[in-house]
């Protein structure tokens, strides 16, 4: 059974280890923005769950609820020209990166105003103008892509970094090792972030990984900095990511960060929250450490935000989610004529589509 006690030790391979104590020198505006993004993610996904249950969203829909500290902590310290790439549990990362809630919701609804024009859906959110590179749904498949973005940065002698997020179960797949090996060997500015929510679908990661602390996988690659953090603490995630960004930007050193977190919901909307693989008690215990409530309490105690302002921020997040759903509702479905439009970047080549004439 996954418990909070799993957050045991911080790796110290980074030169200036910091924890999430205090507010990392952030101003009140920045802190409130971090909290707002977490709330927006939460309220947005609660609305998405509702729409899914009403049949307005189809397919697979993997929610991030409970893990918001990871996306908010890891993405807020990035620069606009940095890159973000992630797996299929991507709604919160897209929102934190700045993709409009309306565009994300319309994508979940499969509408033309979606950030991927309705062609990608929940698992394939993209926004090129924000260097938000998806949204990839083969476990581990995007880790080599992140290495390639890092390679391109070095190739052009840029100083951007790539943040690549993925779930715990990806550490067992070959592409994880192939990507980390190349990133370390060629000194690519990539931050690999394990969102360790303790389960690969319904399987406790400890039942499938032959290593007790996933971050220790980094030991296999010289030059790869590593850090394990409390993924329920947004400031801890942010502190670790800031260090990793600095290493990547200044020294081209890649990192592996393991954020220990928890998802409250089932693997996807079609899976149960608890049952054979974990107990209701376990879920309830983690909910007591809710990353949004913990962080908002700290901000209130620290005088960054008043209780009333927090309530108002929450109402605004709910309203934004509602507006996003209303917007998605009225956005048109893609035209059948769009079927061949995006298969290739130029005109669909002659010939093959003739076979489809009877459709």
């Amino acid at each position, binding site marked *: 059974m996954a418990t909070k006690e799993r957050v045991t030790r911080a790796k110290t391979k980074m030169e200036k280890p910091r924890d999430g104590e205090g507010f990392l020198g952030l101003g009140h505006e920045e802190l409130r923005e971090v909290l707002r993004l977490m709330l927006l993610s939460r309220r947005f996904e609660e609305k998405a769950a509702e729409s899914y249950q009403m049949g307005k969203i189809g397919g697979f829909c993997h929610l991030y609820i409970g893990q918001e500290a990871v996306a908010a902590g890891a993405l807020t310290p990035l620069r606009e020209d940095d890159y973000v790439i992630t797996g299929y549990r991507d709604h919160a990362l897209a929102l934190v990166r700045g993709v409009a809630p309306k565009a994300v919701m319309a994508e979940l609804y499969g509408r033309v105003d979606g950030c991927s024009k309705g062609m990608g859906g929940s698992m394939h959110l*993209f926004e090129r103008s924000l260097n938000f590179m998806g949204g990839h749904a083969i476990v581990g498949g995007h880790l080599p892509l992140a290495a*390639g973005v890092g390679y391109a940065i070095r190739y052009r002698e840029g100083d951007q970094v790539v943040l690549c997020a993925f779930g715990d179960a990806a550490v067992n797949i070959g592409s994880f090792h192939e990507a980390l090996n190349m990133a370390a060997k060629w000194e690519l500015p990539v931050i690999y972030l394990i969102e360790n929510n303790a389960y690969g679908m319904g399987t406790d990661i400890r039942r499938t990984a032959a290593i007790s602390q996933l971050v220790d996988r980094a030991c296999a690659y010289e030059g790869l900095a590593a850090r394990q953090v409390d993924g329920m603490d947004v400031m801890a995630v942010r502190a670790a990511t800031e260090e990793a960004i600095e290493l990547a930007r200044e020294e081209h050193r890649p990192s592996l960060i393991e954020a220990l977190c928890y998802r409250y919901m089932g693997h996807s909307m079609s899976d149960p929250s608890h049952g054979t693989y974990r107990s209701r008690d376990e879920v309830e215990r983690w909910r007591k450490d809710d990353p949004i409530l913990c962080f908002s309490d700290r901000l209130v105690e620290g005088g960054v935000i008043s209780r009333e302002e927090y309530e108002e921020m929450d109402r605004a997040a709910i309203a934004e989610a509602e507006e996003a759903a209303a917007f998605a509702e009225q956005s048109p479905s893609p035209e059948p004529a769009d079927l061949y439009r*995006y298969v290739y970047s130029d005109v669909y080549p002659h010939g093959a589509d003739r076979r489809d004439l009877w459709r």
Partner: protein
Amino acid sequence: MAVITYREALNQALREEMSRDERVFLIGEEVAEYDGAYKVSKGLLEEFGKWRVRDAPIAELGFAGLGVGAAMTGLRPIVEFMTWNFALLAIDQIVNSAAKLHQMSGGQYNVPIVFRGPGGAALMLAAQHSQALEPWFAYVPGLKVCSPATPYDAKGLLKSAVRDDDPVVFIEGELLYNVKGEVPEEEYVVPIGSADVKRAGSDVTIVAYGKMVHESLVAAERLAAEDGLEAEVVDLRTVRPVDLSTVLESVRKTNRVVVAEEGWPVGNVGAQLTDDIQREAFDDLDAPVARVSALDVPVPYARNLEKLVVPSADHILAAARHVGYIT
């Protein structure tokens, strides 16, 4: 016109494209310091340096995916597989990433990448090193698939592939690297998706690509000498998208067709082409389309058995006689 090998033609294409466009880089096993397992990349490391000619670990999935990621940022990677047999380890990146990203992102991310290397049976390399996999990739919308037969086409097509804004699977012939042919000194490209009539004829059409073009030409000469029939050999050059109009034009002239390819028979390029031909030119056919392909078994090591499995001019000749009702 200079006469050079297929290998040299590919090398020229790489050098010219890398000189023309600094976004183009080459990555693969042994491509840099070793000059390439088949010497296609000879001299490029010295000319372009290690960031543009990169020796990769033996991790096909990893470096193919690295190429896709780099392409998403606008670079133009050429990913070399030592052979296409090894590319099966990278098929997730070719099919699930490269071929899908443009559509999945609603047109935001195109993937201008070339995956290239030799394919097909060589000599006694046994089952895991002797596969012709063009149909696997031709199956996938989002990909383009080229398989040139001559030095001229190899150079011109590779240049087009590098300039293409979408992923191109480029399968060279392992046994063709030493084939010589005329290649002009001046700049040229061969467009993707255009077939080429390699031998004109009026009695039977032989459609082929890659190594089978050469076997078809041998068969055509024998057919002329021994049976007095003139075969037209249509080299597809690209198997996705197929240049069906050139094929049909020939079929309407000869009314008889043989489709020859190196790979296995089930669900291959010839199977698709046969369907296209019967649908588009049913009334022009004087005989059912004949297909020549490998026997439906993994390629064995023993020389005598290997010769039985891999198609050759003999088989194509027999098929041509069959559609010509020559007994």
